[in-house]
């Protein structure tokens, strides 16, 4: 009973804090330190994300009891609540599935030992220079008794892990180049070889953390309060933002009076919806020929190449992170540009549902099921809203995003008309997707703000979840296909 009273009090306190916070900007730092900071650790008082105003994220967890209880469970399990989870709190259904999978991969029974798992996480995150995830797992790695020497670089790690470096590199940037020879190299019976089950575990971990790195950059996740290393290789000006600054910039209008107040730039959403409607209705009369359909995929593929990702500012990987991987120059290369001709992967020939799932579940029981649930959750998640509009069927848009990402990895759906992508995804959005998926470390706040201006932050996070899962599935498909080929 005592506790119940206490928590009611604190909720009251918090809501009071937030209301006053909206009005009195000058007090925000003090208030946040005193009241809000109790539950959520924040460095410098500017929230879990650089892109999304803090209040929005915090409000979610207070309003939604489900989110609240998921947060509590996560905290109980890990003894911390990381910023990634906080941002994902916009979508509690997904978050639940995500945390369950991640917990299983890292903590529960599995073929790899705990410190190996964390080291693989570090390797994967370091590939994208994601200092946030690297720092997080360096702590975990040391906590489960990992050898600190390994952290000096991959060269100091056991040879078994060193061999994984190549797979990590290819998987992160050009997964379509994976062949069964790569798998053979790891699996051949030698002293430092991997077992199939271990390899599957490692592959799932690698892909999970590659895509999580995308999410981290895509949502501008801030470094954890206890991992201060993260601040160093970000421009200091960015991390010094007070949340008021952020509010003044991007989300300003959202906090005062009408949250969707700026209607003058409107039309964007409406145009998109109109297009979706047209596509849905006008499908039958403008039926494209088969050749046309085939070329549309090629065109989309080549076009995705022309979408320039880099916003000129070249991000130099800090020494601190780059020591965890080799060959820092190896990066994403456009699928269609790559010199050697790589055949397109047809989903009808190797799909997650039919083939990937069976393989994973066979070698690493239960994980197949969890991943399956997670993919489905991400793919099917919808609130039937778009910005201010309600009761919108967004399935077409979600499918376009999903297939566009797979298209960038050279995965083709026979039954999809790639012309739809061009109609539904505008250029700034494509830039954002491409950057986030292919070289997430180059994502900037400007990119995040410049696409889908009228959409809410929760919707942008939703998009990020889609991107992350689509990317993970694409990588997994290539890796699992290589393993299947090795086995046959």
């Amino acid at each position, binding site marked *: *009973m*005592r*506790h*119940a009273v206490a928590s009611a009090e604190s909720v009251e306190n918090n809501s009071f804090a937030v209301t006053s916070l909206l009005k009195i900007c000058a007090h925000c730092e003090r208030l946040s330190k005193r009241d809000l900071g109790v539950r959520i650790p924040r460095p410098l008082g500017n929230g879990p994300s650089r892109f999304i105003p803090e209040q929005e994220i915090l409000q979610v967890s207070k309003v939604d009891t489900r989110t609240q*209880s998921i947060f*509590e*469970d996560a905290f109980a399990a890990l003894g911390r609540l990381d910023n990634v989870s906080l941002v994902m709190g916009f979508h509690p259904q997904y978050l639940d599935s995500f945390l369950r999978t991640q917990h299983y991969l890292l903590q529960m*029974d599995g073929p790899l030992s705990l410190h190996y798992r964390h080291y693989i996480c570090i390797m994967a995150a370091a590939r994208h220079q994601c200092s946030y995830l690297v720092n997080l797992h360096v702590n975990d790695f040391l906590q489960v008794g990992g050898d600190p020497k390994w952290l000096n670089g991959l060269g100091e790690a056991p040879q078994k892990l060193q061999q994984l470096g190549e797979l990590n590199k290819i998987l992160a940037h050009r997964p379509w180049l994976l062949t069964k020879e790569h798998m053979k190299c790891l699996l051949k019976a030698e002293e430092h070889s991997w077992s199939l089950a271990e390899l599957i575990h490692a592959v799932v971990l690698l892909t999970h953390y590659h895509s999580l790195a995308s999410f981290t950059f895509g949502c501008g996740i801030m470094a954890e309060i206890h991992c201060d290393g993260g601040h160093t290789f970000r421009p200091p000006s960015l991390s010094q933002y007070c949340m008021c600054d952020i509010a003044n910039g991007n989300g300003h209008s959202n906090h005062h009076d009408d949250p969707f107040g700026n209607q003058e730039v409107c039309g964007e959403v409406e145009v998109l919806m109109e297009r979706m409607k047209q596509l849905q209705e006008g*499908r039958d009369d403008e*039926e494209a*020929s*088969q*050749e046309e*359909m*085939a070329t549309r995929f090629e065109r989309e593929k080549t076009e995705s190449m022309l979408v320039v990702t880099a916003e000129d500012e070249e991000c130099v990987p800090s020494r601190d992170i780059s020591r965890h991987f080799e060959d820092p120059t190896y990066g994403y290369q456009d699928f269609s540009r790559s010199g050697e001709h790589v055949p397109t992967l*047809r989903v*009808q*020939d190797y799909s997650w*549902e*039919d*083939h990937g*799932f*069976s*393989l994973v579940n*066979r070698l690493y029981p239960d994980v197949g099921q969890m991943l*399956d649930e997670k993919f489905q959750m991400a793919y099917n998640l919808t609130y039937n809203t778009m910005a201010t509009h309600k009761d919108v069927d967004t399935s077409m848009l979600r499918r376009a995003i999903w297939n566009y990402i797979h298209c960038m990895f050279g995965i083709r759906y*026979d*039954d999809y008309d790639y012309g739809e992508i061009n109609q539904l995804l505008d250029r700034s959005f494509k830039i954002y997707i491409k950057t986030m998926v292919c070289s997430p470390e180059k994502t900037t706040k400007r990119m995040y703000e410049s696409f889908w201006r009228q959409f809410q932050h929760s919707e942008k996070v939703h998009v990020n979840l889609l991107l992350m899962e689509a990317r993970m599935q694409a990588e997994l498909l290539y890796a699992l296909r290589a393993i*299947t080929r090795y*086995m*046959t």
Partner: protein
Amino acid sequence: MEKMSRVTTALSSNAISGRTMFCHLDAPANAISVCRDATQVVVAGRNIFKIYALEEEQFVEKLNLRVGRKPSLNFSCADVMWHQMEENLLATAATNGAVVTWNLGKPSRNKQDQLFTEHKRTVNKVCFHPTEVYMLLSGSQDGFMKCFDLRKKESVSTFSGQSESVRDVQFSMKDYFTFAASFENGNVQLWDIRRPDRYERMFTAHTGPVFCCDWHPDDRGWLATGGRDKMVKVWDMTTNRPKEIYCVQTIASVARIKWRPERKFHLATCSMMVDHNIYVWDVRRPFIPFATFEEHKDVTTGIVWRHQHDPHFLLSGSKDSTLYQHMFKDATRPVDKANPEGLCFGLLGDLAFAAKESLISSDVNRKPYPGGDRRYPIFFFKKPDPTEQFAHVSSALSVFETDLNSNHMDWFVKTAQLYLLSGKPFAELCDHNAKVAQELKRPQVSTTWTMLRIMFSDPANLTATGPNHNLSSKLGTLPLMNSFSMKEMGTESRLERSKGESRPDNTHLEPGTSHISNNNEENEETEGSEGQAEYMFGDAELDDDELYSMEHDNQTVLLSNTVLSLLPLPNRHEAEVTCLTPIESFSLISISQPLYSPHLPGSFFCPIAREMLSYYAEQGDVQMAVSVLIVLGERIRKEIDDLTQEHWYMSYIDLLQRFELWNVSNEVIKLSTCSAITCLNQASTTLHINCSNCKRPMSNKGWICDRCHQCASVCAVCHHVVKGLFVWCQGCSHGGHLEHIMNWLKSSAHCPAGCGHLCEYT
């Protein structure tokens, strides 16, 4: 019709001289189908669409349907079906969502007849109506099924599954209007072709996608389904609720399924991933395939019985770009390779034995074990059906009980409970364990413990050994326990003598330990002489083995060491006492020699100890091996490789747990030094609790229940909520704050809640 096909069956089986054959395709196949008269087969895939004629000795390519300069996606087939009435008619399902029909009677090169592009996603399956010429059904990834009339340009009706993607559609063989559809979410639906608005019935058949279904060709009520969950299930659809009548567990997800013609209980399956074989199952015997075809090098994607009334020919297409005809007589029969008998020991030495029924019945007169064992035939399967080739569907299980007195395991349980493995000085542990073994009439074990104490007691460390020796001297009766057992064969006077011997030892030892601080040599000497003196007496009592052992007495230590481990074997069949005494006496004589030398540290004996441990482990007494391993600890651990240690630990822990000696097994796990063993205690440490009020699981916090909003765990002493450490009695399940309960039970033996239970707190 029926008659005619039977005639062709007879013809074809005459014509085809029974050959397993194959041909290379240019590309992986996705599906195959055979025409009605079983002379041609069509193969369809992403990059292949060809018709082959089945000739006696080989496949002959008849026609390539993949024509045109730039083959469109319409040629990329996920499924193909040859019409069973109209031999010129084929239908394919394309990966881009098109349904295409082909007319072989067309004069032009391009045989494409109709094109339906109504589905939005990949079409997974097409199916012709078995008796209606113009009716075609399709099932697609978009969740819709469409029925086409081939005389019209578009579908006549659309069925919405209202759930996920359709994986398979099959017209019922017997009911004109019924078809079954299987779905990605695990459901199976039955539809009436005349009612597109709603399915007739729906049930969940599998967890995960149902990849395939097939109606039984003869029995109208039977539907077989196969899914990603690696199961094949046979459903009886005639009842109100579909009933699962058979279930076969395979090793990989089931991609295709086909009932075998003319064999009521047989069906063929192939898998989607990993496993390349085709299995034919007898559903009544789901544990082992009736027949296996192992020719393919990559996953099999299509299987079809060559003729609908001939069970001997199976055609299959595969991702490895081959098309096979399998002869049933060439199939592998896994049953032939399977072990026909099973044998297993029970915990208390009972023996279970399963074998073919015929084998057992022929042996009725022979007693497998001498000495009045009883036998229980447990159950019998029904007699094999003589028409089926699958013989020996029955086996009998017999259980042989051991004589209660001869071989029971009491000694193991008692030993496990009474042994001390830690918590006291080494020598004391050894003495204690020796005593335990002695009381259980296991003199060899007992002596081993004593030997170990002698060998490994650290003479260099006086402060430690001092008290040890005092204690061991006080426990002076311990070595004398040996004499008690000897008493059975020896005399009273000898016992007296040996007692007399040890007393002077005591007096000799005490001044040594209390006054002298540095006299290693003397100490060791006394110890050595003590051992020798005692066992010399034991030796003297031997009659037949005496000479034998004395011979070795003068040999080198090393030699006798090896004899130590070898000797017990020839003697094992003698009576217990005579068998064991020679070893102890003999071995001790041999090793007591080096004890005189002051330069020998404990590690000198490590090889002996190691051999001794291996000996015990090989004899099946892994208990002894592990106990010694733990007691000796660091002294011996380096000598034995980790894998062996782990193996011993695992065996011992397994045994302990079978006897439900949880505490002992936990202690062993705790004391073990293998990382693989200690981590056993780290696994599955989650404790699930239920609310004490509403008895439902507590999900969130440990102290307050989400459902009934009551504080679940209240301290029985202070009546406040317990957060943090909660201790409770496992007898009456009352409990509270650790401190409060501790204090309470200091003063009272009864439960603080007043339930009258005598709680124990340890």
